């Protein structure tokens, strides 16, 4: 077709004078090529929309459950659509309890059971009329928290809560002023329970998150929040008056765990926000996105993390004076504050911490730490970061190497500009009796079961 048209144009061209012929030739060529060009543009747009559809369909499959994992690991969707799944725990029989941030069908704790042993929950029920984050099993009790109290349910010999409507109130009256109100919790093996009480503030400014508002000196929030409180695990109706401020100066700890090897509390702190927005004279937008570090601490009684007076800069490896308290991004401070044992890039929001004590995973993972990073919002307009589960190798109770990404692709998109773009957001971590790792997602309510098969 194209060939024949070219012959016809050539015949016409031969009959004309040279200059005129050139003009006519160009016009004819243009007229001839124009429809072709338009057709090509149309087709290419068809193609791009086709490939776009194929891409999103592919991503949708990937989102369903194909986390990116190291070789030999596989993930299975144990359950989905359970609600805003925060922390979770596995019973000795392999059943799962999940705490929901807000009520689903009027309930805040979900029970999941796999009756045929295929690795997927086929029975579920729910109870508890409060939303919250914390959930932990120790011995024959399930502990769960609202944003101001901790409740305890007795587990029967099969690891099941039978009296779902009559929990003991272990702790009550903890401060909840909306901001950082998750009361995540963990128990040691000596009859104590540790509860995070997050700061109801970003940096203890006189007016929270307002440019040029000075830091309060001393910060009054530290009296009743921004720390870890210790209570008796079998106490009833405890409050601030009979709890101990076990560690202070921790802005907001959502992920925490008890390290059995060291018999010690480990926590993940959410670093402060908005260095650039509040102090553009000292920080670039890029520095504001990267700083400060998200930090892991090994805690002893009486330790101080330094908030709000300092933050940790993982690039300089130093504790830096907060700009609300006279800092300029360079001055160091906080000699009395403890150093983190591991630091991660800023704002990734570590919401889950778990020391792996199973034997299903290869040697490398044993006694190491998994950290669930919920994913950032504070890096805008830079692209967001996190939305993965990281791993930190440990030897003799200390990190033996740098952190690495263990499970990725929760978000289902390679570039996340806003958290709303993320399909799933990892939050809680738990280990099954067989050594499988469970991860909760508080966006779509997926519970992932990650196993090692070696294949």
């Amino acid at each position, binding site marked *: 077709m194209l060939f024949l048209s070219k012959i016809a144009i050539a015949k016409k061209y031969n009959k004309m004078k040279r200059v005129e012929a050139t003009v006519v030739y160009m016009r004819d060529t243009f007229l001839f090529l124009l429809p072709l060009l338009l057709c090509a543009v149309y087709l290419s747009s068809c193609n791009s929309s086709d490939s776009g559809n194929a891409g999103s369909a592919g991503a949708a499959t990937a989102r369903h459950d194909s986390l990116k994992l190291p070789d030999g690991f596989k993930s299975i969707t144990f359950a989905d659509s359970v609600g805003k799944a925060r922390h979770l725990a596995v019973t000795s029989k392999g059943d799962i309890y999940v705490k929901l941030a807000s009520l689903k069908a009027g309930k805040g704790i979900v029970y999941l059971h796999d009756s045929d042993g295929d690795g997927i929950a086929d029975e579920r029920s729910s109870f508890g009329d409060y939303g919250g984050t914390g959930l932990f099993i120790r011995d024959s009790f399930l502990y769960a928290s609202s944003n101001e109290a901790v409740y305890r349910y007795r587990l029967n010999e099969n690891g099941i809560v039978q009296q779902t409507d009559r929990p003991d109130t272990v702790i009550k009256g903890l401060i909840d002023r909306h901001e950082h109100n998750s009361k995540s919790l963990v128990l040691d093996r000596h009859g104590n329970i540790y509860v995070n009480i997050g700061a109801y503030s970003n940096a203890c400014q006189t007016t*929270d998150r*307002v440019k040029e508002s000075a830091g309060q000196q001393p910060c009054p929030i530290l009296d009743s929040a921004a720390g870890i409180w210790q209570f008796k695990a079998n106490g009833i109706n405890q409050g601030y008056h009979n709890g101990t401020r076990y560690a202070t100066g921790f802005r907001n700890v959502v992920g925490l765990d008890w390290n059995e090897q060291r018999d010690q509390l480990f926590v993940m702190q959410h670093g402060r926000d908005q260095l650039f927005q509040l102090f553009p004279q000292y920080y670039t937008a890029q520095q504001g996105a990267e700083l400060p570090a998200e930090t892991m601490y090994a805690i002893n009684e009486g330790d101080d993390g330094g908030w709000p007076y300092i933050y940790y800069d993982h690039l300089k490896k130093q504790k830096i004076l907060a700009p609300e308290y006279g800092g300029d991004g360079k001055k160091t401070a906080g000699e009395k504050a403890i150093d983190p044992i591991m630091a991660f890039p800023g704002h990734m929001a570590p919401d889950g911490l778990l020391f792996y004590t199973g034997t299903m995973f290869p040697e490398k993972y044993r006694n190491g730490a998994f950290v669930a990073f919920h994913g950032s*919002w504070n890096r805008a307009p830079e692209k967001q970061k996190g939305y993965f589960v990281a791993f930190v190798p440990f030897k003799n109770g200390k990190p033996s190497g740098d952190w690495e990404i263990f499970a990725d692709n929760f978000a289902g998109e390679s570039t996340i500009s806003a*958290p709303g773009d993320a399909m799933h957001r990892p939050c809680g971590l738990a280990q099954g009796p067989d050594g499988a790792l469970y991860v909760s997602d508080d966006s779509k309510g997926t519970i992932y079961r990650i196993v090692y098969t070696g294949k």
Partner: protein
Amino acid sequence: MKKIWLALAGILVAGGLWVIGCSSPTAAAMKRGELIYAKTCLPCHQADGSGVPGLNPPLRNSPYVNGEPAKLIGIVINGLSDGVQINDEDYTNPMPPFGKALNDNDIADVLTYIRNNFGNKATAMTADQVKAGRK
């Protein structure tokens, strides 16, 4: 005579534009609003106005954004520290007050931008409305 008709027609057109201009956003206000949004609001409410689940409220499909202007102006001027519930979702981070950092025109323009972006379609806001909201 012809000139008079022309002048009258001109006035009519100008008057029509003035009436429309009162409630629908001008390009200039939208442009100024966009710049203020990027600097002041975007870090928390995000580039697409989707907010942060559980923390910072979305600005799209929000009764606060598309509803009563005086209430919205009050939130920008005085902030909000008690958390809010929007479409059955709780949002816990506080909104800082911007009454000092932004002047009446700034607030009018940024709200005009927000009310006509992210899929929103609501009336423009004026500096006079903001001024009245400061009292």
